[in-house]
């Protein structure tokens, strides 16, 4: 299998990389793709708990690069999608600098033989952890919230990805608050596109459901696939599979009228 590696990155921390990785990865697996999620945040690890798999992690990335175990045996199978979704956890007892670039590259190459899509959840920052997570990727998804510092960091990261010759699929605008946008107090996705000059991959509305899903240890998309947020993740997955894909979500169905979405069979 000649799979592809996609890094999910942002520069700034706390903008939702891990949640996007978990949910978009889950969406890709639901669409029938064989998906591996790699937690690139070595030393901290977050992806396992967002997926609710923390108790099932036995081996991690570090065990693989030190040849303690074969890659296939280190993977955690996601029981919600047992044929399609797997996790390679990060190690908490090591530092990012302990992972040599060439070792990480070997893991990515081997994973691409086994999976159609290998999603790497990059750590925040632009140092070693970002570098190893990004430079062996074929494609990149950058995540931003509609705020000045986050957008500025994403622009910087896009420049670095271009230097690494990683093709940037586009930006996910996370936690968009439509009320603030309508008031003129939050940058709209179009404003962000004008500034960044990269394609738009998707817009995820701000929603307290995210907090609830993470509390419960289930990806939001598993619990609430037909919520606006859940549909946003699915649309991003479609767009990764086909850049020409036109999202189901039209402008009409946002905001007030989305309350009546069920009348039109949307959820």
């Amino acid at each position, binding site marked *: 299998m000649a799979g592809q590696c996609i890094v999910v990155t942002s520069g700034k921390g706390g903008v939702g990389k891990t949640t996007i990785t978990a949910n978009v990865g889950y969406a890709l697996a639901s669409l029938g793709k064989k998906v591996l999620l790699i937690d690139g945040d070595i030393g901290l690890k977050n992806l396992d708990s967002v997926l609710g798999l923390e108790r099932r992690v036995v081996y991690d990335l570090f065990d693989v690069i030190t040849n303690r175990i074969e890659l296939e045996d280190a993977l955690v199978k996601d029981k919600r999608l047992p044929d399609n979704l797997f996790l390679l956890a990060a190690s908490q007892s090591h530092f990012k600098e302990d992972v040599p670039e060439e070792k990480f590259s070997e893991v990515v190459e081997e994973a691409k033989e086994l999976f159609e899509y290998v999603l790497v959840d990059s750590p925040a920052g632009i140092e070693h952890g970002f570098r190893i997570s990004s430079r062996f990727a074929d494609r990149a998804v950058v995540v931003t919230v509609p705020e000045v510092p986050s*957008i500025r960091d994403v*622009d910087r990261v896009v420049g670095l990805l271009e230097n690494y010759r990683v093709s940037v699929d586009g930006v996910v605008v996370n936690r968009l608050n439509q009320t603030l946008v309508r008031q*003129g107090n939050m*940058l709209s996705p179009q*404003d962000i596109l004008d*500034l960044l*000059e990269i394609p738009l991959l998707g817009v995820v509305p701000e929603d307290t459901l995210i907090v609830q899903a993470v509390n419960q240890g289930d990806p939001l998309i598993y619990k609430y696939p037909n919520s606006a947020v859940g549909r946003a993740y699915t649309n991003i997955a479609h767009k990764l599979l086909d850049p020409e894909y036109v999202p189901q979500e039209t402008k009409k169905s946002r905001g007030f009228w989305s309350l009546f979405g069920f009348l039109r069979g949307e959820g």
Partner: protein
Amino acid sequence: MSWFSDLFGRHTKNDAKQRLEVMLIHDRGIFDNADLEQMEKEILAVVKRYADIETGAAEICTDKLDNGRLLLSIRVPVRGQKSRR
């Protein structure tokens, strides 16, 4: 008060957009002045091997293109062909 500020208040997104426009242009300026000076010297040294140029009148500068990317341009007045050895 909130409807009032909605109607007549300042739309802060315009502040964000204007500030970001300035920041991004600045951030994308990848060469600092010392880099530019050194690069000019090195480029002129190469051109000099092939043509008779007015070194003093050479210019190197950066501009922002419409797509936001940086354009690096070099102007070198040429007096004539370099005399062959």
